[in-house]
C-alpha cells in the first residue's frame, strides 16, 4: 500500500507542516494543564509566562488532597459518585442499546420504520438543547437531585443505539438462521451469538458514554453537594481564582487520565465501529 500514486515530496512536507501546526494548537492547552500541575507556586505567576517547569513538585497534588479533607463533603464521596454514575450509566446504556439494536437491525416488525426515523432525527438534539424540557419531566417525576437524573438520560442516548444498529447489520443472517434452526430463542441468540460479535461496538458505546458521564458535573440535574461527581469539585477549586491555578491543573490532570487511557486502548475498535456510522 506504500505504492500510492501522485504523492509528491512537496505535498508531503506541506501536509506534515499543516498537521504539526494544528496538532500543536490541539495539544498545547492540555499539555499546559499537565505541566502546570507540577509547577511550584512561584513558577505559575511569572511574567513572561513559561510553558515548561524548572523545579517540578508534587505540592499541588498534596495541597489538593489537604484541601479535600477540609471540604464539607469528603473527596471519597465525590469519587464514589463519579464512579457509580459512570459505571452504572455506561453498563446500562450498552445493555439497553444493544438489546434494542438487535431487533432493529435483524428483525422486521410493525412500527420499525417509525422508530428508526425517530432515532435518526433525535441524533440532532443534543443534551444541552433538550435540557429544559428534560428538566421539567425529571422534576415532575421527582427525579431531580437523584442519581437517576444523570443515569436515565445516559441510558437512552440515541447515538449509541444508532451506532449499534448499524454495526449489527453487518452480522451475517445465516449465522442467526442456523441458531434458529437449532431451536434457540431470540433472547439467547442475542446474548450468545450477537453480543460476542459486536465487541468493537460495545467499546465504542463505552467510550462515548464514559467520556460524557465521567466529565459530567451533574448536568444541571443535581444540586445536592453529596451527590455531585468529581468535575463539580474541580469547578469549585477553579472558582478559587489564580491562587488555585496549580491545584486546578492537578485535579484536571487526574480527571483527564482515565478517558484518554481508555480511548488509546480501544481506538482501533472505535474506528471500526464508526466506519458503519454513515447516514443514507
Amino acid at each position, binding site marked *: 500500500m506504500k505504492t500510492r500514486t501522485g504523492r509528491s515530496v512537496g505535498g508531503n512536507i506541506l*501536509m506534515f507542516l499543516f498537521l504539526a501546526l494544528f496538532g500543536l494548537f490541539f495539544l498545547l492547552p492540555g499539555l499546559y494543564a499537565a505541566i502546570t500541575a507540577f509547577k511550584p507556586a512561584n513558577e505559575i505567576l511569572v511574567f513572561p*509566562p513559561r510553558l515548561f517547569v524548572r523545579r517540578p513538585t508534587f505540592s499541588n497534588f498534596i495541597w489538593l488532597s489537604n484541601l479535600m479533607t477540609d471540604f464539607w463533603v469528603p473527596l471519597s464521596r465525590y469519587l464514589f459518585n463519579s464512579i457509580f454514575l459512570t459505571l452504572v450509566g455506561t453498563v446500562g446504556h450498552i445493555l439497553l442499546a444493544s*438489546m434494542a439494536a438487535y431487533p432493529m437491525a435483524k*428483525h422486521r416488525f410493525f412500527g420499525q420504520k417509525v422508530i428508526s426515523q425517530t432515532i435518526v432525527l433525535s441524533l440532532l438534539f443534543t443534551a444541552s438543547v433538550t435540557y429544559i424540557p428534560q428538566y421539567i419531566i425529571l422534576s415532575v417525576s421527582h427525579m431531580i437531585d437523584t442519581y437517576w437524573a444523570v443515569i436515565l438520560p445516559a441510558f437512552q442516548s440515541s447515538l449509541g443505539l444508532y451506532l449499534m444498529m448499524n454495526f449489527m447489520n453487518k452480522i451475517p443472517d445465516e449465522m442467526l438462521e442456523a441458531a434458529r434452526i437449532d431451536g434457540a430463542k431470540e433472547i439467547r441468540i442475542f446474548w450468545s451469538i450477537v453480543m460476542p460479535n459486536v465487541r468493537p461496538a460495545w467499546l465504542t458505546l463505552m467510550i462515548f458514554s464514559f467520556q460524557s458521564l465521567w466529565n459530567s458535573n451533574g448536568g444541571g440535574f443535581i444540586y445536592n453537594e453529596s451527590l455531585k461527581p468529581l468535575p463539580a469539585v474541580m469547578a469549585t477549586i477553579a472558582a478559587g481564582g489564580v491562587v488555585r491555578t496549580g491545584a486546578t491543573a492537578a485535579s*484536571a490532570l487526574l480527571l483527564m487520565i482515565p478517558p484518554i487511557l481508555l480511548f488509546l486502548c480501544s481506538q482501533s475498535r472505535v474506528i471500526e465501529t464508526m*466506519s458503519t456510522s454513515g447516514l443514507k
Partner: protein
Amino acid sequence: MPRKKHQAAGSAHRLSAWEQIRQSRDSYLLIAPFMLLFVFLTVIPILSAVGLSFTSFNMLETPRFVGWQNYQRMLLGDPIFYTVVKNTLLFAFLTGPISYVLSFLFAWLINETGRLLRTILTAVFYMPVLAGNIYFVWAFLLSGDSYGVINGLLLQLNLIQEPIGWLVDQNYIMGSLMVVQLWMSLGTGFLAFIAGFQSMDRSLFEAGAIDGIHNRWQELWYITLPSMSSQLLFSAVMQIGASFGVSTVITTLVGFPTSQYSADTVVTYIMDVGTTRFEMGYACTIAVFLFVLMFLSNFVISSLLRKFQTE
C-alpha cells in the same frame, strides 16, 4: 437497506396486524426498555415543550394557557432574544462549517500518515473532547491580565502594548469563544471521517490511477469524496447538533448569564429563562424556536449533500 425477514414460526401469508404484532413479541420485548426511556426522556420532553410553549408555567402552579402570547413576546418584545439568536447563528454558520471542513481535512491528512502516527494524531485531535473538562484551561490562557499566557506572549513580542481582556472585552469575547469552541469540536463526526477513510475500498484508488488520476487532490475530489457521502451526512448532523448546542464553554469561561447577554446563545438563554427565572412556558417557546431552526438547517444541509451525492 435490505433486511432479512424474521419469522418465529412457519410462513406468514396474510396475517392480521394483531397477529403480526403478536409474532414479533420477542422484538418488542427487547426494544421496550430502551424505547420506554427514550419516549419518556426525549420524545415526551420535546413534544411537551411544544405544548408548554403556549402556556405560562412556573413549575409550582399548573400551566395556564396563554395562546400565542409567548411567541409574540419572543419575536416583538424581547431584544435579548435577537442578541442570542445572532450569537447562535455565528457559532452555527462560522464555527460549524469551519469545524466540519477541518474535521474532514484532518481525517484525510491523518489517513495519509503511517499507522503509529495515525493513532497518535487521532488521539491528539480528539483529546479536547475526550478530556471534556479541560477547556477551563483556556481561562488561564486567555486571562485578561499580563499573567495570561497569550497576553504575556503578545506583550513580550511587543505585538500589543497592554493586556487584552479576551473574555471580558465585548470586542473579543465572541472571537475567543469561537476559537475555544473550534478547539473542542472535533468529536464524533471527526471519528466517523477517520473511519470512513480507513474503510475506503483500495481497489478504487488503483482503478483511478489507471484512469488517469495524477495526484492526491484529484484522488480526493473524484474518488474519496463521492464514496464518503454517508459519512459526510452523518458528520453534518453531528456538527449541527454541536454548533447549535454551544453552552458550557460560555458559562464556564465567561459567565452565566454573560454581561448584557453579549455572548449568550439560545441554549444558555433558555437555561437562564428556565432555571433562573422559572418562566418555563417562555423557555419552552424559545426551545421550540431552536428545534425548528435546527430542523430546518438539517433539512437544508442534507438536501445539499444528497444533491452533491447524486451529481
